[in-house]
């Protein structure tokens, strides 16, 4: 296969996204700069400036306008992408909901970053969790290679006629966006034929088939329209697996809704999102070598959440530790809440651990402690790596 002949390049996650965008060659890219998203849009702007991508960047005056312009462009029939982080996504949030409701298949590359206050530029997942219920697909990646691969998959998922929803490709700010790793790119032609053409079902610019888009709906119709969105999200889970299969044929790398790692015969499992999985895999290897039966379940699709597959993957495990890189004060952290739902009724003990808010590092030592601590009964989330009285991790 050609795959083995391809030489990897050393790219950051942000640069890998810019390459994916160059190869996908979207028509319209409205963007507003924010750390740590900037390498994505700067990289893409250089490609456009050099004529290596033929679409147009709209340098708007805010993220709210970035997402608004993206909705307009997508409904007018343009393949549309944008990128953001943190406060930028928070400002976009209103329009992320509308994009999902208007079924605008916009791909949003996200460099996950903590939300203010205090203002902080480093990674956590609070930003994408803010739009958790927007109806946008959320795919979390582990490294720069996956950021590239999932970006290539994203338009196929977003634009599928059964889906037509925005897709957020979430990579950890700095940990992935700014860390250089070997990344194998596909050939430009392969990407182009993989993503194909975007065909908008109802183009706003079609003068023969005139449409009214974004109308006012009262209680007699609103509910049905919202249900259609929920159904589209269910379809996205199936489409994600199909597109993953197709990409695997090209690359030999497959990403579905989740990735089990050494869960066979595991007594204890750790569940997490994003780049943390890399460190957890090392710790799992060490613990396995020491004879401890520990495994990992990495969730790739936070929306749609793969409840059935997660339940199947964790069935038989005695205790599950869920690592959340965001919190829900007064409630359970978002990933823990979903995993608890997936495991409901199974004789599995579940504990919730919050870690890494605002970019605080999570050390291998702490993951080992979590893996040992998980069987202890406690309903409250534990804050790993926190200084002060609640520090237990």
């Amino acid at each position, binding site marked *: 296969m050609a795959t083995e002949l391809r030489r990897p390049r050393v790219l950051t996650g942000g640069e890998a996204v810019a390459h994916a965008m160059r190869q996908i060659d979207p028509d319209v890219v409205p963007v507003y700069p924010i750390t740590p998203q900037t390498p994505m849009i700067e990289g893409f702007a250089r490609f456009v400036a050099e004529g290596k991508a033929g679409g147009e960047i709209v340098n708007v005056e805010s993220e709210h306008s970035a997402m*608004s312009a993206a909705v*307009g462009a997508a409904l*007018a029939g*343009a393949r*549309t992408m944008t990128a953001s982080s943190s406060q930028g996504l928070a400002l976009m949030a209103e329009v992320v909901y509308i994009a999902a409701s208007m079924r605008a298949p916009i791909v949003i590359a996200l460099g996950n970053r903590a939300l203010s206050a205090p203002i902080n530029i480093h990674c956590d997942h609070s930003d994408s969790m803010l739009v958790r219920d927007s109806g946008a697909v959320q795919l979390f990646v582990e490294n720069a290679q996956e950021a590239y691969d999932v970006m290539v998959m994203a338009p196929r998922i977003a634009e599928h006629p059964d889906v037509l929803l925005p897709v957020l490709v979430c990579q950890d700010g700095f940990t992935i966006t700014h860390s250089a790793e070997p990344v194998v790119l596909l050939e430009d032609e392969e990407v182009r034929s993989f993503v194909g053409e975007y065909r908008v079902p109802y183009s706003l610019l079609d003068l023969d088939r005139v449409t009214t888009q974004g109308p006012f709906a009262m209680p007699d119709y609103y509910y049905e329209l919202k249900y259609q969105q929920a159904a589209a999200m269910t379809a996205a889970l199936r489409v994600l697996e199909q597109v993953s299969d197709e990409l695997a044929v090209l690359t030999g790398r497959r990403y579905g809704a989740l990735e089990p790692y050494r869960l066979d015969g595991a007594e204890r499992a750790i569940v997490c999102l994003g780049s943390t999985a890399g460190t957890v895999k090392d710790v799992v290897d060490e613990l396995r070598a020491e004879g401890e039966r520990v495994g990992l379940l990495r969730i790739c699709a936070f929306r749609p959440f793969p409840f059935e597959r997660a339940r199947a993957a964790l069935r038989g495990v005695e205790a599950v530790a869920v690592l959340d890189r965001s919190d829900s004060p007064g409630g359970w952290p978002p990933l823990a809440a979903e995993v608890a739902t997936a495991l409901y009724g199974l004789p599995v003990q579940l504990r919730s651990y919050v870690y890494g808010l605002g970019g605080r590092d999570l050390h291998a030592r702490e993951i080992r402690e979590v893996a040992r601590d998980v069987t202890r009964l406690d309903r409250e989330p534990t804050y790993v790596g926190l200084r002060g009285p609640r520090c237990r991790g």
Partner: protein
Amino acid sequence: MPRLKTLVRREGGVPPLRGGHSLCQGCGIPMVVRTVLGSIETPAVVVSATGCLEVATTRYPTTAWTVPWLHVAFENAAAVASGVETAYRVLRRRGALPQADPITFVVFAGDGGTYDIGLQALSGALERGHRFLFVCYDNQAYMNTGVQRSGATPRAASTTTSPAGLESFGKVQERKDMTAIAAAHRIPYVAQAAASHWQDLGEKAARAAAADGPSFLNVLTDCPLGWGHEPRISAWIVNAAVESCLWPLYEVVEGRYRLTYRPKKVVPVEEWLRPQARFRHLFRPEARELLDAIQRRLEEDWAALLARCEADAASFDARPTQRS
């Protein structure tokens, strides 16, 4: 130059905005929409901000629109139009449009969606130079939500959030000059118009649509509910704003100011104020000073505008206005 016959013929029996919508009796908005769209030569694609026009014309699953129409939210109509216009140019370049027709992109937003919550997106879109026509139907308050004061509400108007009362003469602040704000972006075409002067409005819409870049029309329209006047005097009351020089009709072409209508006999602003319930308190004896201040302010603004137009008159004679 649009005439009534031309406007009607161009609609070909299919107005861009059909009847059957639920805008109020006496509302000036549909007049503005039909005059503007009827004066544009090319097919139009419309973007609306949230507001009376959007709510009253698109109740799902019905629509009053026969031209393509898009609404996304309140504050972002100009940003949405930026995306649509960019998509149009890129898709045309790539040969991927459904039809090859040239299209004029027109945004309709109320004063809330223009002066206030929509100002940032509008300013950004004007600065970027997207080719679209932004039409503000300015009825001087948040009428859709029940007559709350906006940045366009004139001083002393009583609204539900700036009510007149024993201790209050209505809104304390002056309205902002949105037409001047748009002109400060140095876009090719900016104009102030009124629903009562449909021919002037139509000519301005045609010139705005022909401009090579963004254009902005600030159009005064009444609101029988919010202004508190009888629906049957809709055109008359807007006309009074023009005849009193409270709402001058002018255009700013490539930065040069030109008056497009000069009242033959200027009437006192009281003529405009008196029939409106929102200004009723101004006719209490203790409000005399405020009433005088409103008249004085209006005269100062009018004099400044005349001076500006006279200064630019020479350059207008030398370089004729671009026509569609």
